[in-house]
C-alpha cells in the first residue's frame, strides 16, 4: 500500500519570495510521483511528474521538484511566487508495475497563500 503525507496544510508567503511545499511518501514498491494544482472552483492540473532519470524535474509555471529516494520525499519549489500561484497543491504517487490500476494516491493538500 502507498500513502502520501504533505507536511504543511497551509503555507503563507509574500509575493516574489521563494517557497517549498513538502511531500513525503511511503510505499513498499517503486512509485511514480506527481504534483497537481487546484485553483478555486476548478479541477486538478498537472504541474510536474517524476518517472525516472534526473531527480530534479521542472514543470509548468516555474515550479520544480526534487525526488529523494533515501528520504522518500518529493518537495515542490519555486524561486519567486506570484499572487496567481495562490491555490491548493497536491502531491500524488502511483505504483509502478503492470498490476496497478493506474490510480493515484493523493496527499491531503497544501494551501499556498501568496500575499502582496
Amino acid at each position: 500500500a502507498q500513502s502520501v503525507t504533505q507536511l504543511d496544510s497551509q503555507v503563507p508567503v509574500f509575493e516574489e519570495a521563494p517557497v517549498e511545499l513538502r511531500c513525503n511518501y511511503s510505499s513498499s514498491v517503486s512509485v511514480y510521483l506527481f504534483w497537481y494544482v487546484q485553483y478555486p472552483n476548478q479541477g486538478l492540473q498537472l504541474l510536474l511528474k517524476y518517472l525516472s532519470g534526473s531527480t530534479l524535474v521542472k514543470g509548468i509555471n516555474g515550479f520544480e521538484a526534487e525526488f529523494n529516494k533515501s528520504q522518500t520525499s518529493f518537495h515542490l519549489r519555486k524561486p519567486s511566487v506570484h499572487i496567481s500561484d495562490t491555490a491548493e497543491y497536491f502531491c500524488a504517487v502511483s505504483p509502478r508495475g503492470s498490476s496497478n490500476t493506474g490510480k493515484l494516491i493523493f496527499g491531503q493538500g497544501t494551501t499556498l497563500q501568496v500575499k502582496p
Partner: protein
Amino acid sequence: DAGVTQSPTHLIKTRGQHVTLRCSPISGHKSVSWYQQVLGQGPQFIFQYYEKEERGRGNFPDRFSARQFPNYSSELNVNALLLGDSALYLCASRSGTVSSNTGELFFGEGSRLTVL
C-alpha cells in the same frame, strides 16, 4: 479541443436519494477514473474504467457504482445517499493503455454534491 466535461456542476440531494453524475472524457481517451474529494482533503480513488470494463476500484461501499459507454463517456451512480457523501466528485481521463500510469490524468472541474 474540449477538456473533460462533467455534469451537473452542482446538485443538492437528501439522504436516501440516488444520484447520477456524468463525465465525457477528452476525445481519444479510453480510460476514465472517478475520484471523491471531501472538503479539506485530497481526492480519493473510486473507480477506473477502460474500454467499458471496470479495471480498478477503491475502498468505497457497494452503493457506489459506475459504467462506461461505447463512446467512452461514463456515469457514476450513488444509491442511498448519506450525509458523508457530500463532496466534489472528479472525473479524469487519460490516454494510453489500461495499466499506463505514466501519462497525465486530465481532470474535469467536478460535480459538487451536497446531501442534506
